[in-house]
């Protein structure tokens, strides 16, 4: 332990703790901007500077470790004055259109400006100008709002190990950019959206589809169906001030109905369908010496990553579409026929924790007989905005229920939203199928938790089946390198592009650096999903009564010709840099 004094308070912290952490642990707040715990600890912005007695110049509290006997002042007059000037300088090169910014009210810069009572920017001068990149279907870059904290760069480069964006130029002209300032659409960006989650301002955001959805809702002719992904319900409440990890499925359904959607369905059911197909595909590969390991394909960021970086190994990917695409195809076929609705008039809107899903639904492959599976994808954040626009008092809403006839999803579908969930759901079904009976074991804890790569060997029908679960693209790359080198002995691998899975997707509510430093957001959201599973009556996809009905009435059996037509897709090599 190291003893030191911060702001007159004698404290004792573990060796190797930074001044910032030490202060935070003891309830002393030091403002930060570029700091993002364990991701970007570089001391660039200089907001976190503090005074250390006997030291010339300020110390960088987010980097500098505590030392025995250190006397730190976090809010001396000199420090506050210096921070004020730094903040002023940042603001002098910022767009400052807060009222019309998507991050209004959830912006770390705005918060600091209020805290420091900035009423006038003293050091006005030239501003760097950037063109806005909104070419891609998923993401918009407006670097006129960028403060060069580089949290996005660190996330892309070190967490995801992609490096689609980096700092270019130098001095005042420095900015974050892609190679030659090309659109993210045309470079190695996978649209995972983790950069958006780490941006303290509005420089990075999703490509909004709210207006498109409102337009459809206003269109008398359109039959607008909405489906919501498992991870949305455990995060949406955060946008309305509810605790992280609150399951607001009921209120969400009510809100969607009052917004005016004609039907509200659950993508969890789509997830069950995915398991039916994927488990079947896996068993087939096992039994017929197919390409192994088979890798899940629900995460469109991961799929884009594979197509750009490992085009030679695409046959490892399951041919299954992702749950919401499958579900969209079923809505526009089975459901449309059953209720005699013109499939051309149906508009399927998916509410997803993901921005890559926006890109996914626009892929050429994602249609059946010229009818798009899904028309629009909006993120959890966009849904929250729509609810606010509709002037709905979300917290006071009664709980609603998903619409018939797509039925209630299994618990297996719910856990799709977390890393390890797809694997666990698939195992539940595959085990039963291979063993030829309903097994009691439901929970496979080896594949649960936050670890980047989790492995397990399961004894199924007398055979050792080796599975792995990877979340985050850095880990995905490790698995793919193994495959490329012929050193991979897994049978089945689950990959999700975002670290932690969909609950931490690029479309989820954005948590400030401070929250991310102090709260394990992923765990709270994940626990909420597992608790939905636990409380479910049906916890295996193939035991979902609606699945049984759907195959009987429409799809015949998993892997059937019809199933392939509606539920499966193909992958093709994509140029890493289309420039």
């Amino acid at each position, binding site marked *: 332990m190291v003893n030191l004094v911060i702001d007159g308070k004698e404290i004792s912290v573990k060796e190797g703790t930074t001044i910032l952490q030490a202060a935070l642990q003891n309830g002393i707040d030091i403002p930060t901007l570029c700091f993002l715990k364990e991701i970007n600890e*570089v*001391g*660039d*912005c*200089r907001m976190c*500077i503090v005074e250390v007695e006997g030291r010339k*110049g*300020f110390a*960088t509290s987010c*980097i*500098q*470790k505590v030392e025995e006997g250190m006397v730190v002042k976090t809010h001396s007059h*000199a420090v506050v*004055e*210096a921070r004020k*000037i*730094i903040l002023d*300088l*940042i603001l*002098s*090169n910022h767009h400052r259109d807060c009222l019309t910014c998507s991050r209004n009210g959830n912006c770390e810069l705005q918060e600091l400006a209020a805290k420091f009572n900035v009423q006038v920017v*003293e*050091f006005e*001068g*030239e501003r760097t100008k950037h063109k806005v990149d909104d070419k891609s279907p998923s993401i918009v870059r407006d670097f006129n709002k960028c403060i*060069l904290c580089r949290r996005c760069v660190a996330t892309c480069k070190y967490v995801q190990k992609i490096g689609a964006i980096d*700092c270019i*130029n*130098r*001095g*005042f*002209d*420095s900015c974050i950019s892609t190679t030659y300032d090309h659109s993210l659409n045309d470079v190695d960006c996978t649209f995972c959206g983790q950069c958006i989650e780490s941006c303290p301002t509005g420089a990075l955001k999703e490509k909004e589809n709210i207006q498109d959805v409102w337009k459809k809702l206003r269109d008398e002719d359109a039959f607008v169906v909405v489906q919501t992904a498992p991870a949305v319900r455990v995060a949406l409440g955060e946008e309305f001030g509810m605790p992280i990890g609150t399951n607001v499925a009921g209120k969400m359904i009510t809100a969607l109905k009052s917004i005016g959607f004609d039907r509200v369905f659950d993508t969890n059911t789509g997830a069950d369908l995915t398991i039916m197909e994927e488990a079947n595909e896996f068993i087939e590969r096992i039994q017929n010496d197919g390409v192994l390991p088979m890798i899940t394909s629900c995460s469109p960021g991961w799929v884009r990553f594979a197509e750009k970086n490992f085009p030679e190994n695409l046959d490892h990917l399951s041919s299954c579409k992702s749950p919401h695409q499958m579900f969209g195809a079923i809505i526009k076929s089975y459901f449309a026929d059953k209720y005699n609705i013109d499939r051309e008039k149906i508009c399927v809107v998916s509410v997803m924790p993901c921005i890559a899903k926006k890109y996914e639904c626009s892929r050429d492959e994602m249609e059946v007989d010229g009818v798009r599976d899904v028309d629009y994808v909006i993120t959890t954040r966009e849904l929250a905005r729509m609810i606010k626009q509709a002037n709905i008092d979300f917290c006071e809403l009664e709980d609603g229920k998903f619409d018939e006839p797509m039925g209630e999803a299994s618990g297996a579908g719910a856990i799709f939203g977390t890393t390890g969930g797809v694997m666990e759901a698939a195992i539940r079904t595959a085990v039963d199928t291979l063993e030829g009976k309903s097994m009691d074991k439901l929970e496979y804890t080896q594949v649960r938790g936050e670890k980047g790569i989790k492995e397990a060997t399961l004894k199924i029908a007398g055979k050792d089946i080796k599975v792995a679960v990877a979340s985050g693209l850095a880990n995905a790359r490790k698995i793919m390198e193994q495959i490329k080198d012929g050193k991979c002995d897994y049978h089945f691998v689950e990959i999700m592009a975002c670290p932690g899975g969909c609950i931490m997707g690029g479309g989820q509510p954005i948590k400030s650096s401070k929250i991310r430093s102090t709260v394990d957001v992923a765990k709270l959201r994940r626990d909420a999903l597992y608790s939905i599973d636990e409380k479910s009556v049906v916890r295996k996809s193939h035991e979902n009564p609606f699945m049984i009905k759907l195959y009987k009435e429409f799809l015949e059996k998993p892997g059937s010709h019809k199933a392939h037509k509606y539920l499966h897709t193909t992958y093709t090599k994509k140029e890493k840099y289309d420039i």
Partner: protein
Amino acid sequence: MKTIAEIESIRKEKREELDLRVNLKSNAVEKHILVCRGTGCTSSKSPKIIENFRRIIEEKGIKNVRVVQTGCFGLCAKGPIVIIRPEETFYAHVTPEDCEEIIQSHICEGKKVERLLCKDVNGEIVKKLDDLNFYKKQKRIALKNCGVIDPEQIDEYIAFDGYKALEKVLTSMKPDEVIDVISKSGLRGRGGAGFPTGKKWSFAKNEKSDQKYVICNADEGDPGAFMDRSILEGDPNCVLEAMAIAGYAIGANQGYIYVRAEYPIAVDRLKIAINQAREYGLLGKNIFNSGFDFDIDIRLGAGAFVCGEETALLESIEGKRGQPRVKPPYPASQGLFGKPTIINNVETLANVTKIILNGADWFASIGTENSKGTKVFALGGNVNNVGLVEVPMGTTLREIVFDIGGGIPNGRKFKAAQTGGPSGGCIPAEHLDTPIDYESLSSIGSMMGSGGLIVMDDSKCMVDIARFYLDFTVSESCGKCTPCRIGTKRMLEILTRMCEGKGEADDLYKLELLANSIKKSAICGLGQTAPNPVLSTMKYFKDEYIEHVSYNMCRAGQCKELCEITIDPQKCKGCGLCKRNCPVHAISGEPKQVHKIDQDLCIKCGTCVDKCPFKAISK
């Protein structure tokens, strides 16, 4: 691979042969024609001079004359320089066409070529090198071999005690003893901040690691400074030897020299020196059969001033953008590739071998209480003897500018001397008698820096000078931290406003506020010292700032928007010289009539002011 004995025999043999280079009364029968091949003289065709000398000597079949390329002699203003030894004849401004005459007259007939002999400030002919005031007050330690040996011949280096220090260290000293000597000598970093070298080494020595590195910082970016380049060009082996000694002291066996790609001659000479040293086994495995391995690689910079900052340099060697790291952790514990690393400047290293051979006490006897040894300055600007000078610490600015530098040309007055480049400050005449060392310079608002020393006469506007330095810092800022990236830009905007006559009332206040804030809050040395040129000029030349802001006036006539060039009709004789020399044809007038300047066309280049024989034109 050569043994200690073999090296010793090369040394003996060569020393005798080269005795005439350092000994006026040498009995040697040869004559050596030394031609400077430093960057300055090379750009004024010294390679052609060497070629011509060699050709003529061969054509004439002359024996016992050798043409030698050397490093910089220091007095760059007189370049290209040719020195003939042993008689120390100093020829200045030699052209390739002069070679024939020098050979014929001097070598063949024994008559010096009078018209080419170097003249001092008063126009007196300099008979031999040592007579020149320029050299009298100098003490050459770091530059000892520059201008004496051929830097591309390791044997010549060996002749003058080369690799003797390494031999001594490897055969008779423990690493701690080496560090002890360096510590006791009082040697401090010559790159700018003046950190004690011995302390730096001992920090790295005390770190436990499987791998450590020694880096030579040869990224001399300070505009107008060329000390390090001259050492590398004139005596590359002394840097290699010192690096090996440092490696032995801290327990490293790999060294890197980070040198600007803009220094092609230095890079070439380093490559040659490294290859020759490897050939002799002075670098590589098991040096002097001591079991100590050490090798050196060159890493090229690519044009970023900030890479002179040690952590930015590390990033650059790692192949990244040269953006400084926050310290601590210091490189001595986590440096290159995360391993303990020492980074020493070229000039610092150039002192090491001499300290090892002559002892700590010898070195500590030179200089001031806290600054030992000598310092090399690149003397430039409005001073007669532009060039490279090495003086003991504690020499006054006056001695450097007036005795060594020969004073201010064109009858102008001394206004300020700038030391430390973009990180330093401007020192006014009132501090001319300050003995120069690390502490005294920082106490008067400047810093030692790497050793640029620019003299300014009274035609210079100090606000414009401050703007010049800020402009440099802004364009060289890496952009990592807010204060430097945006703050220096805002300072530059304010200074530019002032120079353009658009200054606002509270600009002075804002400028000072920003300057003091950046000084304390920027990440690295570049940012923290960027405001120095502004703060020091504001301190000593505040009136000029006030004149710019409040009266739209620039007393030096440098700020174009604030001045007009006019012709005094009383003095103008209508000679037309100004008209003919005006590059933009802004001057009109009939012969023998008073001329006039069209202010709309005038670009205020000042050519006419200089050309007018009647001093009728002024700013």
